[in-house]
């Protein structure tokens, strides 16, 4: 008999569910079918959960920024505006689906899934609690970096397929920006990989539980990662590719209705993925006292997301050339220096102790 793959539905709250599924299906079907079933169930949970998370993020962003700007924000739909996002989605779903006549149809249409799918794929390796992840790859780290850079393709597709000059400008900005910031992101995490000695997400969290949170050892790495993530995520102060005061909405200017909503969804999925990665790598993942691990993980993610919102409420936007200058003259040298200093530090540590 093929052993049941230990990939899906592990971890505290789901172990029971997994056992039930295995108990029912075990005698009837072969192991690999159970594996597929478990993965599908896990995926369903994940997508459902992430949709709710994104809705809460959108609401949170709107309410927090409203608070910072001395106004109320959405508070009409449901208690404290809790169902505002639901209402928005219903509205977007019922809107006419407009495809510009001169658009490059296949590119225009495919850009949407090209945006959403990679942002969901990242969540495959995120560990919400001990063992609670869809896949614990031994190259989890590289996987995240590889998948997150796929977003560029969808942006360029949307910008080109729309056949709109503003969209094209946005796409050109996106291509330059995302590719430039890919490099400091990768290099900022090299220090972590050197210290931990593994690219596996569970190893990184485990190392932090045994020793200290990596933010203490890699503050510069975190800074470079965080700033570059802002650029990669296309958040203020680096939201150039959809700068509403300059190029109106950038690459998704021609999208309306649910297609627009899906771009929006992808954007927030990416944002949450970035903070989840930052929490995993620098803030000890799910580690924390009293509450269950997954509560800690989500709490930390929301706390870090709050910083993103805070920046959005405060900062102006940089210009294209300043953005590039920051990447190549600021972030890349800083990340390189960080690698060097980490190496020296590790050598000294090993020599002394």
């Amino acid at each position, binding site marked *: 008999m093929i052993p049941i793959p230990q990939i899906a539905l592990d971890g505290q709250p789901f172990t029971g569910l997994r056992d039930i599924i295995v108990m029912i299906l075990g005698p009837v079907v072969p192991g690999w079918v159970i594996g597929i079933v478990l993965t599908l169930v896990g995926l369903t949970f994940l997508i459902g959960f992430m949709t709710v998370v994104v809705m809460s993020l959108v609401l949170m962003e709107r309410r927090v920024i409203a608070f910072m700007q*001395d106004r109320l924000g959405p508070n009409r739909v449901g208690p404290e505006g809790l169902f505002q996002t639901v209402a928005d989605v219903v509205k977007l779903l019922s809107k006419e689906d407009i495809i510009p006549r001169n658009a490059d149809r296949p590119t225009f249409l495919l850009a949407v899934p090209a945006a959403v799918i990679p942002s969901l794929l990242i969540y495959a390796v995120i560990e919400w609690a001990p063992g609670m992840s869809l896949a614990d790859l031994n190259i989890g780290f590289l996987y995240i970096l590889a998948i997150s850079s796929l977003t560029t393709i969808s942006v360029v597709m949307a910008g080109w397929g729309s056949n709109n000059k503003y969209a094209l*400008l946005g796409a050109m900005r996106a291509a330059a920006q995302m590719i430039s910031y890919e490099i400091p992101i990768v290099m900022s995490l090299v220090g972590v990989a050197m210290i931990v000695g593994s690219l596996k997400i569970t190893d990184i969290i485990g190392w932090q539980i045994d020793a200290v949170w990596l933010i203490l050892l890699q503050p510069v790495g975190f800074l470079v990662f965080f700033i570059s993530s802002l650029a990669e995520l296309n958040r*203020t102060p680096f939201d*150039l590719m959809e700068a509403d005061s*300059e*190029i109106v909405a950038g690459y998704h200017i021609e999208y309306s209705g649910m297609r627009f909503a899906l771009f929006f969804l992808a954007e927030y999925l990416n944002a949450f993925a970035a903070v989840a990665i930052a929490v995993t790598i620098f803030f000890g993942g799910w580690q924390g006292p009293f509450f269950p691990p997954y509560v800690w993980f989500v709490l930390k993610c929301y706390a870090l997301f709050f910083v993103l919102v805070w920046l959005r409420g405060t900062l102006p*936007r940089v*210009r*294209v050339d300043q953005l590039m200058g920051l990447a190549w003259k600021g972030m890349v040298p800083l990340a390189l220096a960080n690698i060097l200093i980490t190496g020296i530090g590790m050598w000294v540590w090993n020599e002394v102790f």
Partner: protein
Amino acid sequence: MVDPGTLAINSLGSEPSFETSAVQVGANNIVINLGPQHPSTHGVFRLVLTLEGETIRAADSVMGYLHRGTEKICEEGTYLQNVTLTDRLDYLAGMSNNMAYSMAVEHTAGLRVPERGEYLRVLFAELQRYASHCVAVGTFGADVGTFFTPLLYTFREREAILDLFELACGARMTFTFIRPGGAALELPEEFFPACEKLLDDLPRKVDEYERLLTDNEIFIARTRGVGKFAAADGIAWGVSGPILRGSGVRYDLRRDIPYSAYPAFDFAVITRDEGDAYARYLVRIGEMRESIKIARQALAKLKSTTGPTVLKLGSFFRAPPGEGFSRIEAPRGELGFYVVSDGGIAPYRCKCRAPSFINIGPLAEMLRGWKVADVIVILGSIDIVLGEVDR
């Protein structure tokens, strides 16, 4: 608009300091319409930009989308009716427009406004300047790319000032409060404490805007050195207001050609030498503080004087044949009205010298070589109101 071969830019190209150039539109260039419906053109203003990548190679401004023929309509209405039209020129500074027009009519008819009327005019003109600069600074912040935080901060105070205006004359934007002969109404009792409280509050609020923007690294990086404009060019183009003062020219009609009750008040003329977008922003912030100072003095004068605020003119008052001109320092610069009378109940001709219109003259020159993002910043730093540009 654009013919396939070349795009001739700068219809204003005959100016001496201005070289006319034709940019080849080809594979490396794209022509893009910024406006007339664009979030950052502050109205229905259109810019035809020829871009090479993100760099502006040529810019052509197209205006007239809000043309309502105000000057012609003025020939149909009586002198008092026309005041309502001036509210709708620079709709962010209705009081200043009322004042300039009224002064032109008074000049034509040789009227002398009661002392108290002058104080009222100054008080409201300065509060209006503050409110107008609120919009300028706030939208400038949004143009630079903040998510509307400065805009909402400044609009908070603007609302408070509009509430005061509402208390005084019942309207929030189109007042027709300052009219030929003075200012329409005596202030209500409750106006004075409300105004005093607001004036005590405002300096702290200006500090708040400054904390948000003035020292912000990104804000400085985006605005310092952008849209540089030399003093000599400014004089040649006839620009005025914060743009000219931001280029280091100490020119403020309130001080240089004193009108109304301004000689009685103590205030400073704010200038900066840099001539860039940042300098214009700082000039506006400085002027907001000065406006508060002037408004305080005017309010004190109003409290200590009594008497009429307006001359009784009658609805169909006729100015003797002749002409009159007035110019005042409106929030956006030198606002002038020229009124010709043939002795009838309506002006024979009325002409408005709108500062916004003159100030965007050198826009094409200022934009060339900058990035798309800078277009918005430069346009925002000039602070145009389309009601006034197109009239």
